[in-house]
C-alpha cells in the first residue's frame, strides 16, 4: 500500500514525518472516538438491564442471578492478546535489524495469537447465546455484543493484515527498507490491544 | 492587470444599495407587525401567562440590541464598499496587516456583551426551574401518535387533546411519550417540554386570562405530526369547579373533542 510521497521523489515532507505514518496516527486518533462512543454507550447502560442474564452477580427483587462473565477465561484471552503485542513488536524489531526469518516467525506468532483470541471470543459469544444473552434480549446484550464484536472485527482485520504481510515476506518483499509496512500494521495491532485493555477493565472487571 | 470596468457593471454602488433598501425596510416592518397581530392563536409575542410573558420579555431584551448590532455592522459593510470602491487609476492601497489593539478590542467587546446577555438568561432559567410556592395543580401529559392525554392525578380524571385549567393557577406538567418523542407546546402560555418515551420532563406555567389557547406537538413524530394539535382551556375557578364536577360525574357534555388523527381521512 505505497503511495507517491515527496520522500520517494527524493524530497523531504514539510514536517519530516512519513505521510503514511502520519495517516495511521490520524486514523488511530479517529478510532479513539469510535471506541469512545461505544464504550460510553456501554457505560451509560451499565446496570439498566431488566432481563437476565446479567454481567455480574445480581439480586433483583430477592431473586439471585449469577453473573454471566467467566473472568478467568477472559483473563486468559486478554493475556493472549497482550502477549501478541509483544510478538508484534519483536517482529518489527527483527525486521528493522534485517532479521527477516525471525520477523516472519514473530508475524506468524502474532497472527496465531490473534486467531486464538478470536476463537476465545467466538466460544464466549456462543456460551452467552446459549445462556439467553442476545443482541435483542437486553441493553446489556446490545451493548456487550456490539462493543466486543466491533473490537473483534478490528482484531480480524488485523489478522488479515498480518497474514498478508506474512505472504509478502514469503515472497521476499518484506525487507528492512520496507519495515514501515510492518510498523504501521504494528501500530494498528497495538491500538487494538490497548482498546482491549480498556474493555477488559471497564466492561469485565468493574461491576 | 487591473480591471477595466465592464459597461454592464457601471451602475453605481449607491443605486445598488438603494435598490436593496426597500426590501430590508419592508422585511423590517413585517417583523414589527408581528407584535401587533395579537389575535393569532400561537403568537409568542402575545402571551397570556406569566411564563410566556417572561420568555417574550427576555427575547425582546436580546432582540433590540442584536438588531442594533446588525444595523451597525451591515451598515459598516455597505459603507466600506461605497467609500473604498476602486477609483480609476487608483494606486495600490496601503498594505495594512492588522491592528492588534483594535482586534483585541473587538474580541473583548462581544465577549462583554454576551456576558451581559448571560445574566438574564441564567436568572430566567432559574426562575423557570423553580415551581412557585403555593397551590400547584399537577398534570401528567402523555404524547402518543397522534394525540395528547392529560391526567389529573389528584382529581382522578383524564382528558384527551384538551387541557382545562383554572386561571391564575400554577400548573405543573410532567410530560412523557409512549411511542416516539413528542413535544408539548402552548406558545401563548409557555415554552416546550419534550415528551420522551422512558423519561419524564417537567414544566410549570399558568394562564392569566380565561380563553382557549392552541397548542401543538413541536417535535416531529411521524405522519400525523402536523395534526397533533390540542387546546388549553383556561377558565375562572368557579367554572373550573363546575367542569371538574361534570367530568368526575362522567357528564358527556364535557367538551373533550377528539382530534386524533385518522389515517383514512
Amino acid at each position, binding site marked *: 500500500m505505497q503511495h507517491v510521497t515527496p520522500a520517494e521523489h527524493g524530497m523531504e515532507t514539510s514536517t519530516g514525518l512519513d505521510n503514511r505514518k502520519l495517516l495511521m496516527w490520524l486514523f488511530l486518533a479517529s478510532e479513539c472516538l469510535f471506541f469512545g462512543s461505544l464504550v460510553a454507550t456501554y457505560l451509560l447502560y451499565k446496570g439498566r438491564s431488566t432481563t437476565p442474564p446479567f454481567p455480574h452477580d445480581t439480586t433483583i427483587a430477592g431473586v439471585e442471578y449469577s453473573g454471566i462473565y467467566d473472568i478467568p477465561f477472559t483473563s486468559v484471552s486478554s493475556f493472549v492478546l497482550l502477549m501478541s503485542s509483544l510478538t508484534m513488536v519483536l517482529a518489527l524489531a527483527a525486521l528493522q535489524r534485517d532479521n527477516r526469518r525471525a520477523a516472519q516467525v514473530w508475524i506468524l506468532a502474532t497472527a496465531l495469537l490473534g486467531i486464538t483470541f478470536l476463537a476465545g471470543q467466538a466460544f464466549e459469544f456462543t456460551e452467552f447465546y446459549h445462556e439467553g444473552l442476545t443482541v435483542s434480549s437486553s441493553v446489556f446484550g446490545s451493548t456487550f455484543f456490539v462493543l466486543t464484536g466491533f473490537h473483534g472485527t478490528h482484531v480480524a482485520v488485523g489478522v488479515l493484515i498480518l497474514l498478508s504481510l506474512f505472504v509478502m515476506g514469503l515472497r521476499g518483499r518484506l525487507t528492512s527498507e520496507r519495515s514501515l509496512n510492518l510498523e504501521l500494521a504494528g501500530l494498528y495491532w497495538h491500538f487494538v490491544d490497548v482498546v482491549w485493555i480498556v474493555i477488559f477493565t471497564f466492561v469485565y472487571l468493574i461491576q | 492587470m487591473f480591471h477595466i470596468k465592464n459597461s*454592464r457593471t457601471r451602475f453605481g454602488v449607491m443605486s445598488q444599495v438603494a435598490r436593496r433598501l426597500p426590501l430590508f425596510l419592508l422585511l423590517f416592518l413585517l417583523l414589527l407587525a408581528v407584535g401587533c397581530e395579537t389575535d393569532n392563536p400561537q403568537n409568542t409575542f402575545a402571551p397570556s401567562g406569566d411564563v410566556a410573558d417572561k420568555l417574550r420579555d427576555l427575547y425582546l431584551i436580546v432582540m433590540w440590541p442584536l438588531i442594533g448590532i446588525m444595523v451597525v455592522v451591515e451598515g459598516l459593510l455597505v459603507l466600506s464598499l461605497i467609500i473604498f470602491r476602486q477609483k480609476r487609476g487608483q494606486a495600490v492601497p496601503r498594505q495594512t496587516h492588522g491592528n492588534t489593539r483594535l482586534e483585541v478590542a473587538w474580541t473583548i467587546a462581544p465577549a462583554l456583551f454576551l456576558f451581559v446577555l448571560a445574566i438574564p438568561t441564567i436568572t430566567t432559567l432559574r426562575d423557570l426551574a423553580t415551581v412557585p410556592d403555593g397551590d400547584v395543580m399537577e398534570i401528567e401529559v402523555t404524547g402518543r401518535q397522534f394525540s395528547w392525554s392529560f391526567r389529573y392525578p389528584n382529581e382522578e380524571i383524564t382528558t384527551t387533546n384538551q387541557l382545562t385549567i383554572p386561571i391564575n393557577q400554577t400548573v405543573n406538567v410532567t410530560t412523557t411519550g409512549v411511542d416516539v418523542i413528542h413535544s408539548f407546546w402552548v406558545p401563548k402560555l409557555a415554552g416546550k417540554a419534550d415528551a420522551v418515551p422512558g423519561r419524564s420532563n417537567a414544566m410549570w406555567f399558568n394562564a392569566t386570562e380565561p380563553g382557549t389557547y392552541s397548542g*401543538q406537538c413541536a417535535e416531529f413524530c411521524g405522519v400525523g405530526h402536523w395534526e397533533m394539535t390540542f387546546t388549553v382551556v383556561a377558565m375562572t375557578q368557579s367554572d373550573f369547579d363546575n367542569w371538574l364536577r361534570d367530568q368526575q360525574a362522567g357528564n358527556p357534555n364535557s367538551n373533550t373533542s377528539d382530534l386524533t388523527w385518522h389515517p383514512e381521512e
Partner: protein
Amino acid sequence: MASAIPEQRPVSIGEALRGLRHEAATYKGILSWIATVDHKRIGVMYGITAFIFFLIGGLEAMVIRIQLAQPNQSVVDPQQYNQIFTMHGTTMIFLVVMPMSAAFFNLMVPLMIGARDVAFPRLNAFSYWVFLLGALFLNFGWITGDIPDSGWFGYAPLSVQSLGHGMDFWMLGLQILGISSMAGGFNFIVTILNMRAPGMSLFRMPVFIWMTLVTSFLIILAMPVITIALFELGFDRFFAANFFNPENGGDPLLWQHLFWLFGHPEVYILILPAMGIVSEILPTFARKPLFGYPFVVFSGILIGFIGWGVWAHHMFTTGLGAPANAAFGVSTMIIAVPTGVKIFNWLGTLWGGSIHLATPLLFAVGMVAMFIIGGLSGVTHAVVPSDFQQQDTYYVVAHFHYVLFGGAIFGLFSGIYYWFSKFTGRMLSEGIGKVHFWLMLAGFNLTFFPHHMLGLLGMPRRIYSYPEGMGWDVYNMISTVGAFVIAASMLVFMFNFIRSIKRGRRASADPWDGRTLEWTIPSPPPPYNFATIPVVHARDEAWHRKYVEDDQGRIVRVPAGAEHDVESHEAAGAEGHHIHMPLPSIFPLIAAIGLPMIAFGLTYYQDTHGEWALPLIPAGVVVLLIGIFGWGLEPEAE
C-alpha cells in the same frame, strides 16, 4: 525503492498490475476520468456531482414551499411531505455543502500550498467514488418507493420504528458517505501538514488552507461518533437491539447526544470552508492583505475546539435540567466571540482597500452580510429560555438557512466565480453573474426572512399543512415566491456556466491580480501543477512576486520582464513528461463498489423474498478486498 531480490517468477501479480496501470495511463475520454487520480479532475467531479444534488435538493425544497404556500393545501400527501423534507435536509448537508467544500479542497489545496497532488491520490479517488455511490444509494428509494421519512436528524425511536427500507437507505447511505468524508479528511490533513512547498510555514498558509485543516480535523473526529450512532440504529432496526428502546432500558436521548456530538462540529464542517474562501476573496478584491491574519486563523481553530462543547444547545427542551442548560447556553455564547472576530476582521480587510466590485466579491460580501444575520439570530438561541419558544419552529429554520444558505452556499458560489477561470481557462460572464447575485440575494431574503416571523408566530417545523387563521398565510406566500426567485437565479447561473465554458472570455493566468500561489501557474494548470516547486518567502507569496515598495514607500508593480513564473511554465511544457506523476488506477473505484453491495445486502436480506440479497454481503466484502489488495500491490508510480 525496489526490492534487492531479483524477481524469478515468470510473471508476478505485480508485473501484471504494472502493465494494467500503464495501460490505464493511456485511457482516453470517460475511462480516463474513471481511472483518474488527478486532484483537479476529482475536484471537478466532486463539484459537478454536488451541483446536481443541489438541483435535486432544490427541487425538493420547491415542493415543500409549494405545499406550504397556502393553508390547507394537499399538493403531496403527509407521508410524501415527510419524505421530501427528510431528503431535502440530508441532501443539502451531506450531498451538497460537504462535497462542494470537498471539491474546493481538492481543486485548491495542492495549488495553494505549491504541491503536485495530494498526499494519497488514490485514496482521494476512493473518497470521490465512495461519495458518489453512497449518494446514489441514499437516493435509491426514489426508485423503489422506500424513501427516508424520519427527518435528516433521524431521531430515535421514530427512525427505528419507521416502516419500509427508507431509513435503511438513509442509515447505510450516511454510513458510506462517512467513509468518504473521513478518507478525504485524513488525506487533506496529511497533504497540508506534509506537502507544503519549501518556505511555506504554517503561518504562511492561506486562510483557506487553515480552514481546510480545521474542517478535516473536525471530520475525522466527529464522523466516528455518528458512525457509531448509525451503527446502533442499524442494530436496532435490523436485529431488534435495544439501544434506543425504552421498554428494555434504552434511552432515546442517547441518539440525540451522539447525533449532536457529531452534528454540531458538522455545522462548522459546513461553514468553515466557506469562511476560508471568503477570507481569500476579500483581500484579493480589496487589494490589501487579510486584516489580522493570526486572529482569523486562531478564531477558526478556536471555533473548531469550542464546537465540541455546545452540542446540547440542540436539546434545550429535552429536560437536561437548568444547570446543564445554563452551561450549554453560555458555551454557545462563547463560540459567538471567535465568529464575531472573523466578521470584524473581514470588515477591516475591506476598510481602506481599493475595492473591485467583481462578482466573486459580491458573493463574498453577500456571504458576510447574510452570515451576520444568521449569527445574530443564533445568539438568540443561546438565550435558553427564549429558545424554549423558538426550538423546532420556523425561527430555527430561518436561522440555519441564513447560516448554511446565506453563509455556506453564498461563500461556495463566490469561490466558483473566483476560481472558475483557473480550471476552465475562461471567465464567467460578469454581467450575468451580477444578475445571478442580485436575484439570489433577493430571493434568499424573500424566502427566509419571513421564517423568523413564522417562528415567532408559533409555526412549528416539519408540519405538512396548517389551518387558516393562524396568521401564517402571508409570510408563507412571500416565502414561496422567494423560493421561485432563487430557482430563477439558479437558471441564470447555469446559463452563465454553460455559456462561459463554451464562449467565455479567455482568462489569463492571473485575472484577478491574486495573492496566492495558484495564480502563478497557467489556467488551466498542467497536470503536474508546478513545473518547478515554488519556494515561498512570504504570506501572499504570489502578490509579493508582483509588487515591491519603491524608495518612497509606495507599492509598485514589478516590471513585466521580471515576472517569469508563467513563462517558465511554458518552457516546462516540453519537459513536463519528466515529472513523475501518480499513475491512474481503477482499484479505488472497485473497492468503492464493494460498499453499496454490502449495504444492499443488509437492506434486503431479511425481507420475505430477500434470500437473493444475502450473497451480496460476502460478495461486497470480496469486491472491497479485491480493490484494496489490487491497490496495495500495484506500483504507485512509473
